[in-house]
């Protein structure tokens, strides 16, 4: 915790306020992984903007990177705030933390469109399949047939946010489990380096309202049904180290900034740059009732929003008013046209 990184900050300095979530909450583990990812990538906290909506998950940006400005917005609308902010300042590194209610229910409209726009934003859903703050209602990601703490069984289909993200053209889609630091930290780091929107669905059991027998998002269920599609390593572009995996079991994906994501295949020969294969994999896993984690899809040629829109390389917020406001001659020209 006390060793400074390349930008001279200790891991502790990437921390935030004390969490007010339940002791043992999966979300707090994710917070720690986020801290590790930023620390290990040597990102200066002031270059980061944090976004969230409403719910347990959305409280967590207060618990990491207290040296970065954060915007805890309204329920299900964080995506639009992040969009405006990213358009205004293309130099910021953006991270959004949302929940399954905040994204898959009230925020579904904005979720879909933020994916389409491909902003540079690491979008983490802390998915516990339950409404925690209002004491345990089903969410749209609760699996059909799973049971509520008080016994009710969910009768409706659940939404698979990862399939949806891939379907909508998101260029970086993965799933992990809050307790799996070894998998999550590289995924977060890869997401932060991705040029465009990186979506991570993180199963994060609610130890109070969704950790009982019958829940499909409990620690026990996850441990028994969880299957990794590969081990992941992340190699930042400025550390030219050799990949030490045996040939034939390793897939390296180069991100546009020069960094690499390394995927070690465990179960099957899987190519995460194949969008169709990614969708097939998720459908197949769902049919078999297997819970897959890993990086499902990555598009190394993703073009972020600001480049699609041909926004100035200088962030709009850094332009002086003299640059932004056209000169008087322009107004005169327009006025003459209206005479």
């Amino acid at each position: 915790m006390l060793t400074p990184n390349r930008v001279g900050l200790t891991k502790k300095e990437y921390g935030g306020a004390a969490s007010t979530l339940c002791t043992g909450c999966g979300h707090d583990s994710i917070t720690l992984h986020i801290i590790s990812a930023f620390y290990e990538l040597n990102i200066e906290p002031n270059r980061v903007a944090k976004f969230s909506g409403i719910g347990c998950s959305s409280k967590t940006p207060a618990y990491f990177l207290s040296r970065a400005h954060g915007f805890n917005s309204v329920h299900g609308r964080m995506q639009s705030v992040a969009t405006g902010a990213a358009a205004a300042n293309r130099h910021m590194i953006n991270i959004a933390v949302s929940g399954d209610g905040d994204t898959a229910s009230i925020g579904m409209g904005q979720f879909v469109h933020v994916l389409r726009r491909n902003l540079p934003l690491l979008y983490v859903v802390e998915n516990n399949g339950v409404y925690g703050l209002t004491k345990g209602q089903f969410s749209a990601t609760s699996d059909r047939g799973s049971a509520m703490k008080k016994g009710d069984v969910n009768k409706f289909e659940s939404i698979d946010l990862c399939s949806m993200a891939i379907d909508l053209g998101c260029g970086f889609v993965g799933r992990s489990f809050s307790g799996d630091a070894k998998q999550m930290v590289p995924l977060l780091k890869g997401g932060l380096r991705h040029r465009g929107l990186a979506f991570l669905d993180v199963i994060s059991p609610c130890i109070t309202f969704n950790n009982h027998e019958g829940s499909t998002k409990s620690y026990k269920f996850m441990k028994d049904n969880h299957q990794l599609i590969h081990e992941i390593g992340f190699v930042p572009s400025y550390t030219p180290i050799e990949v030490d995996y045996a040939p034939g079991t390793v897939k390296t994906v180069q991100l546009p900034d020069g960094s690499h994501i390394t995927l070690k295949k465990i179960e099957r020969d899987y190519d995460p740059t194949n969008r169709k294969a990614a969708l097939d994999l998720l459908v197949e896993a769902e049919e078999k009732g297997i819970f897959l984690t890993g990086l499902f899809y990555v598009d190394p040629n993703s073009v972020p929003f600001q480049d699609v829109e041909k926004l100035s390389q200088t962030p709009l917020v850094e332009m002086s008013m003299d640059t932004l406001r056209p000169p008087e001659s322009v107004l005169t020209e327009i006025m003459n046209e209206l005479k």
Partner: protein
Amino acid sequence: MGAETVKVNDFAIHVATVNGSGSQSSNNVLMRSIFRMGIPVGGKNLFPSNIQGLPTWFTIRVNKDGWVARKVASEILICMNDQTYVEDVKALEPGAFVIHHDHMNIEAIRKDVVSISVPFSKLIAEACPEARLRKLAVNMVYVGVVAEFLGITDEAIGLAMAQQFKTKQKVIDLNKAALAAGRNYVKSSLSHIRMPLKVEAMDGTQGKILIEGNAAAALGAIFAGCSVVSWYPITPSTSLVDFFQEFSERFRVDPQTKEKNFAILQAEDELAAIGMVLGASWMGARAMTATSGPGISLMSEFIGYAYFAEIPAVVVDVQRVGPSTGLPTRTAQGDVLFAATLGHGDTKHLLLFPGNVREVYEFTAQAFDLAERFQTPVLVMSDLDLGMNFHMADPFPYLSKAPDRGKVLTDEDGDKLATWMRYGDPDGDGIPYRTLPGMKDPRGVYFTRGSGHNAKAAYTEKGSEYVEVMNRLSKKFETAKAAVPQPILTGSGTQKIGVIAYGSSDDPMLEALHLLKKEYQLSADYLRVRAFPFSGEVEKFIAAHEIVYVVEQNRDAQMASLLRMEASISAHAGKLKSIVHFDGLPIHARLIANQIFVSEESRKNLVRVA
């Protein structure tokens, strides 16, 4: 109308066409050619919520004295629409001139109007060899007919056409041929009709521009340095963003790199549109959105957030008729009360009421200064009449004053940061200092939230800390009273009768004062309210008059309600008497003048009885 007297530069032309038939360019040419002869004009578009096929009307009012607001009766009707001509003719005043297709039998409808039958289909078939273009070009034939009757010069029409069709020579040639066909038909076949309405060149429009309010708002935003615009298309605000885009792409793209110094974000809905404004403003950009009533409803959540978390936001509300979808293509001042306290909980917002296109330009620009100075949403309350109709104005002045970016602390403000509190009140004016993302000094970093927060921006559920923040917000609102546009008094201020109006009612209100004096020998003082919160002048004005008519374009007298809510004004609430108009068409001078006259007569009688 007596057929013998010649009426120069004082009449209205009502054109009835079918939506999507291309009549808009002909109407623009007709209006602009009169304007080019130096005669004051106003153009009002009455259109359906439809792309093609439903009836649409365009009214051009010509008035040498500059009274170009809506006038109910038009002296000339041009009937190009089979669906509506019977009703259109029935609505005319006796003696009006009806220029119509030769298959329409006007005399069967009324005998007290002048029928001018024109074989439009035959004329355009001769003038335009290409059959597919005839539907469009036929509209220019009626321009030719009107031009010949009224005396509009070819020179003026040539200038108007060049402006309308730019350098498209083929289009200009075609339209000139259609125009000539109309003129020639009048000369050859209609010389028996005596037309007492004439235009005569004058110098009433020298140097002036004709502009729609939405273009004016777009210019206000551009010249205020607005760099992020987000929106969801909605009538009647859509053209505002279209103009912003058009002007920005012409003048704000780097000629070498082709990079833009502005971002236009077409959102998925108005919830997102305002969210994008907040994100961009929070990041430090000048950002705005444009919308109308239904969008305002959706934005209430984020506007409340912006009020409480103190984030600048500029919203131009081009008001249309509500409630609900209402009449999407008709005008109203129906969002006033809703906008003033938009959002749940205790909220109050700065509202600006531009009364003309020049003010639409200036207030939109000023809204950015106010939003950043007061770190709060500012709503520019335009409406369809201002936004989508053509208004005359002097050319807009360049905004040479440096933009006011408000109280922002940066890494350079080391000492101030030591004691800085995001929601504190160090200057005693209720306005805190904000910081922007990207800041290096950790003392200047804070977490923005819509949940309860104390002066230090930390989460709180403590009643006393919440009250402190809310009371400071009230104080900030009080401070804003002196910074918003102040009311304008017309008249000596010493009359017994007072009138309060705002926004697009200004032109008709001024004309109504003229009518009251000329026809009823009544004088009144007129105070035009230009912003909420109200300045102390408003209370003084009400206190100083026996009766104050509040003129507005909604059913429920929303401005009057807002006035009564003000503690100092509520003492004089009994003096306020409302004149409302809300059928979706712009309010007009005759209605205001007549209602004030009738009310004053009954007041006189009451005094006599007493």
